[in-house]
């Protein structure tokens, strides 16, 4: 081991020790949190009713979300802040002579979230430019979240990063959508079989990027398709980015079967740049493994010492199809019209949960973009090598205590095009190991630690490569 590596390890150990001292000092000093996010206020219940490690949801929280942010049964009996009526319920009988009566949340349905991290980076070669070894509280983000219901049939969610530091500093709207619940009841379908949401939203991904517990993204969700010097493909779509469009979806089999079909712009959280609308489809099935058949059907499993998440396996698959458009203004390739490059993303996912203690999940994905190269001599489009990639991640979480969670994550993306373009990684495959620890100091306050052992990337000089490892430590709290 080189002296610089020994030094890095020593500094990492010192930082972990500092983090421990920080916790030892701060845990008793953090005042009891009386301010709680909106749903906790609405029902006067703790965060842990729905979350096992916010923002990750437990089984009850998942059903609460699937049911349009309402309790699965007898919602009205649990609401401690009765809504403001926009019309008496009896007015439904008078409709359409009146505006259909609705409801407003009686208090403004807003919560806030702040997360901020300090980072410690490995020493970067000077050929890559100067980067400070440490950065105190970058990235940091302040988010406003508004969510709730307008009566039984309508639910909404809006979140906006209104103050962002560090990478991704543009911030802006994350999800902003309205959902019409239970459309299927008009055609005799069971409850929540058919819902409609429209606006800007994260696709019905197997594992949320927007509401992940990890301080860093899943790499494969950020992968876009760019041919670079190898062709024309320049598809900005990132599966993990919010998309604009509408989605039909629903649930069956006691909330264990999920389906969704979405039509979206495909330009991430930006206005449309082409006419074609992409399609995303997902299905998943959860198998609860409890011995008692009655318990398998319940929202949560009951045990000798109380309720807990089911021990379960969930399997799913997804498919995304779109047609990227180039030369739409016909100036990039003179003499050619709009060039349509079909593409797709396809993948499968698995999640295993062992009650409230352990979770193991992962996703594998393949992406393919057609790469059409205009030939000015012939006037035809030649088929270049398609831009493809495979990738995925696997993550394990273990609850040592309900407030202490150990995490191990592995990300990998194999992109021959990225490698051949020579800017991102030393090899075809970029992989990253990210062990982490999260400590729920309170139900709404969390301390996070993550170390990233990154892939090697070119370091600005021939045959020089650098592994940009980093260590993050920070806080995340909501109110």
């Amino acid at each position, binding site marked *: 081991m080189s002296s610089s590596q020994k030094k890095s390890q020593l500094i990492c150990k010192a930082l972990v020790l500092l983090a421990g001292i920080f916790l030892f000092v701060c845990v008793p000093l953090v005042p009891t949190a009386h301010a709680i996010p909106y749903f906790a206020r609405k*029902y006067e219940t*703790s965060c842990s009713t729905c979350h096992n490690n916010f923002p990750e949801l437990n089984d*009850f929280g998942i059903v609460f979300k699937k049911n349009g942010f309402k*309790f*699965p049964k007898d919602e009205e009996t649990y609401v401690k802040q009765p809504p403001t009526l926009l019309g008496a319920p009896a007015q439904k009988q008078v409709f359409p002579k009146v505006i259909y009566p609705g409801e407003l949340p009686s208090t403004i349905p807003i919560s806030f979230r702040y997360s901020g991290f300090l980072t410690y980076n490995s020493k970067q070669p000077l050929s890559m430019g100067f980067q400070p070894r440490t950065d105190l509280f970058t990235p940091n983000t302040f988010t406003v979240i508004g969510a709730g219901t307008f009566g039984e049939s309508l639910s909404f969610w809006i979140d906006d990063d209104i103050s962002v530091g560090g990478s991704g500093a543009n911030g802006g709207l994350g999800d902003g959508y309205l959902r019409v619940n239970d459309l299927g009841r008009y055609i005799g379908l069971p409850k929540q079989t058919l819902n409609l949401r429209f606006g800007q939203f994260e696709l019905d991904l197997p594992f949320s990027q927007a509401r992940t517990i990890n301080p860093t993204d899943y790499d494969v969700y950020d992968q876009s398709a760019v041919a670079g010097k190898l062709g024309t493909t320049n598809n900005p779509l990132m599966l993990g980015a919010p998309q604009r469009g509408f989605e039909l979806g629903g649930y069956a089999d006691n909330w264990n079967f999920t389906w969704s079909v979405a039509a979206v712009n495909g330009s991430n959280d930006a206005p449309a740049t082409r006419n074609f609308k992409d399609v995303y489809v997902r299905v998943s099935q959860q198998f609860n493994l409890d011995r008692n058949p009655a318990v398998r059907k*319940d929202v949560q499993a009951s045990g*000798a010492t*109380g*309720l807990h998440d089911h021990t379960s396996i969930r399997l799913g698959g997804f498919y995304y199809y779109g047609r990227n458009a180039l030369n739409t203004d016909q100036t990039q390739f003179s003499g050619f019209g709009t060039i349509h490059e079909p593409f797709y993303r396809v993948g499968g996912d698995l999640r295993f949960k062992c009650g409230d203690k352990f979770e193991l999940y992962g996703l594998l994905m393949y992406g393919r973009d057609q790469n059409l190269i205009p030939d000015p001599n012939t006037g035809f489009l030649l088929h270049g090598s398609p831009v493809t990639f495979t990738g995925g991640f696997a993550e394990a979480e273990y609850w040592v205590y309900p407030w202490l969670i150990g995490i191990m994550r592995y990300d990998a993306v194999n992109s021959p095009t990225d490698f051949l373009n020579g800017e991102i990684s030393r090899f075809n495959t970029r992989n990253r190991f990210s062990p982490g620890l999260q400590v729920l100091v309170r*139900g709404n306050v969390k301390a996070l630690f993550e170390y990233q052992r990154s892939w090697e990337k070119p370091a600005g000089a021939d045959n020089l490569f650098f592994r940009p490892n980093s260590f993050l430590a920070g806080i995340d709290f909501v109110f």
Partner: protein
Amino acid sequence: MKLSKLAFWGIALTLMFFAVGAMAGEIKGTVAAQGIRSPEGIIVYVDTIAGKTFAPPKESAVMDQKKLMFMPHILPVLKGTTVDFLNSDSVGHNVYWPSVGGDRKKAHNLGTWPQGVKKSFTFEDIGAVPLLCNVHPEMSAYIFVAPTSYFAVTDAHGEYTIKDVPPGKYTLKTWSEQGKPTEQPVEVSGAQTTANLTVHR
């Protein structure tokens, strides 16, 4: 003659019974709260009386779970009383207590049960029983297991009345969720005895 003797003793016993009843008094008073949010919900009780035991009631006391709350929040019972724990919610609940009277060896978990079903437990140990739900950590209540049947709970003004206390010298004690226990001697000699106490944080 025999009949008249029987009648005499019957009347005498009846008169004695009512005399004793008439002699039993009540302890009334006010509990002042210092440093705690409210004087409401403080248990005032007569401590163990040497040589005297009390038969627990045949009827069970009830602790319900409704709208994500235990109801009532404070439930005093006599030692040996059976408490029926109900679940009136359509969500799952759990009931457990980490100790009885501070003794963690007496911790117990009743498990979970669905809406409409009840589980019962007989409390044989004296002291406060903090009830919790491990699904909804904000839920809590207290059962206080008293050594005698002479107890009461203060109202919003801190006032209490303990009825049917026979004449004698006793130790009056308090228990409250937020305050420290207090005690003071009290002597019941007439129809009504006043005892005011102060509970400190």
